[in-house]
């Protein structure tokens, strides 16, 4: 069991009131709140050791470099990776774009000899899924458009689970990339990574996993999962804005041409050409988000101290309680109500009331949920709606908060005059 009261005391914002009611923050899937320890770590760094890293010989710079590289090792360890296989990014969106553009660059003949293995030819296929966040969809659309490759999609069944039979048919000898999310930010279902990785391995395709919604909620061992690449965002896992991670298997990272270019990622530069450092530096052009990286290291230390197993159990219990309450309410339809392993979020549709209005009603009671398509418009279209309400929990949420949500949801349709 988690000592949630003690945890809450570390998150100053949870004491806020909204419209005169205590804040009930159920929007952690959009962005999590940050504990004191994270803010303090960044503050301490900026007031005691801040200096340009990897570039200076002075004491402060050496100290800053050590702290920055320690942060890399800490965050890498948290996701089951050696330090040198973790590239800092500004967030998951950036990490996925990095992959799309770097593969595009390989296709354009940039990079070293082994980069050719990543080049796409017209007719090659990129496979993603029907449930992706736009960040794991549009970069692949653009890569396909630039290279002449074809984009295909693993369909989702009505209950939100991926159709693995269809995936088996789709993934074939022309497949070069298989990009999928570990956990959908709308459905909360943990996808069958092992099966997808096996299908991709059979045809030698690169796997790219979006770990945004799993990293803060499940014990994560990327090396064991066997994916080639994975991305996550700091701000969703108790960390600061402006930092995220890209994990890559050593030989895949090594083969990848640079994406962003500039300072600190080169060995030799003349006016007309440049040679590039090995990973991870090759992908870290310019000044890195040093403060945010140090903050993120404090965040994963915090998560580790509480324990991901316990966090997962706590959040699953809250999700189960939420489901039990919501399915009793007339006119509420849960999206992705499958019998599957999941994280602590539910998106739902309120019959006869637009999600925006439902969200406003909840906000009036101090309850912060997300409304809209949650950057997964195609998935909402599949459910015949343009928007839904999503309530998502984190380690700092309580059963009482879940009950308050359920209670409030019960009042929505009456308020808007929709008969049940």
């Amino acid at each position, binding site marked *: 069991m988690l000592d949630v009261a003690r945890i809450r005391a570390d998150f100053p914002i949870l004491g806020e009131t909204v419209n005169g009611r205590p804040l009930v923050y159920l929007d952690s899937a959009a962005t999590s709140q940050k504990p004191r320890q994270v803010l303090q770590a960044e503050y301490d760094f900026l007031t005691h050791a801040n200096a340009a890293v990897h570039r200076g010989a002075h004491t402060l710079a050496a100290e800053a470099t050590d702290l920055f590289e320690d942060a890399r090792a800490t965050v890498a360890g948290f996701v089951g990776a050696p330090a040198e296989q973790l590239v800092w990014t500004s967030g998951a969106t950036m990490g996925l774009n990095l992959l799309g553009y770097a593969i595009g660059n390989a296709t354009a003949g940039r990079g070293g000899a082994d980069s050719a293995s990543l080049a796409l030819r017209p007719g090659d296929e990129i496979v993603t899924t029907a449930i992706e966040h736009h960040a794991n969809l549009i970069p692949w659309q653009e890569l396909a458009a630039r290279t002449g490759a074809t984009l295909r999609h693993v369909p989702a069944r009505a209950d939100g689970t991926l159709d693995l039979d269809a995936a088996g048919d789709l993934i074939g000898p022309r497949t070069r990339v298989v990009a999928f999310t570990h956990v959908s930010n709308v459905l909360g279902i943990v996808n069958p990574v092992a099966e997808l990785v096996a299908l991709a391995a059979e045809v030698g395709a690169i796997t790219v996993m979006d770990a945004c919604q799993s990293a803060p909620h499940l014990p994560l061992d990327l090396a064991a999962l066997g994916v080639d690449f994975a991305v996550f965002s700091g701000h969703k896992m108790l960390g600061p804005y402006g930092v995220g991670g890209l994990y890559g298997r050593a030989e895949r990272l090594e083969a990848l041409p640079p994406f962003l270019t500039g300072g600190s990622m080169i060995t030799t530069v003349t006016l007309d050409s440049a040679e590039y450092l090995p990973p991870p530096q090759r992908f870290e052009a310019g000044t890195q988000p040093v403060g945010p990286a140090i903050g993120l290291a404090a965040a994963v230390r915090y998560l580790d101290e509480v324990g991901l197993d316990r966090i997962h159990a706590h959040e699953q219990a809250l999700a189960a309680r939420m489901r039990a309450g919501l399915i009793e309410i007339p006119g509420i339809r849960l999206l992705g109500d499958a019998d599957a392993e999941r994280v602590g979020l539910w998106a739902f549709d309120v019959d006869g009331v637009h999600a*925006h209005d439902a969200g406003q009603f909840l906000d009036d009671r101090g309850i912060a949920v997300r409304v809209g398509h949650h950057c997964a418009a195609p998935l909402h279209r599949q459910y015949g709606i*343009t928007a839904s309400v999503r309530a998502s929990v984190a380690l700092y949420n309580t059963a009482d908060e879940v009950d308050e949500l359920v209670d409030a949801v019960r009042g929505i349709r009456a308020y808007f005059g929709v008969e049940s």
Partner: protein
Amino acid sequence: MSELDTLYRELILDHSKHPQHFGLAEAEGAHATSHQKNPVCGDEITLRARVDTDGETIRDVTWEGSGCSISQASASMLSELVEGQTRTEAATLIEGFREALRSRGQIELDEDVYGDAAALTGVSKFSARVKCAMLAWVALEDALARA
């Protein structure tokens, strides 16, 4: 009246449930149409109107769309309001409406001028909803620019 009730006035819920001028008229030569979208929540409105042969008077405002009650009610109220007004009058109304909605509760909409749409005054205190209320008005502005 609770904060929430200042947003969801009875009149707004009425309009959203019984939208006026709903259902797009057949497009003829004289009609101008505008499609507007709020990318965050997927609200959409298509609004159509024509300007009379005098080159001034707005006629046959119709619309279609889906979205939250604020955006739907606003389209309904707007259509009633500007039917028969001149371009210039409509432009002034739109400007005044925009200003009031962006005023964060500082400016009230005058019922004598805005009719039912004055009930949207309360939206200005909910900055995330201003776009919803503006959607139809932006569509009319855009349509008139092309009419």
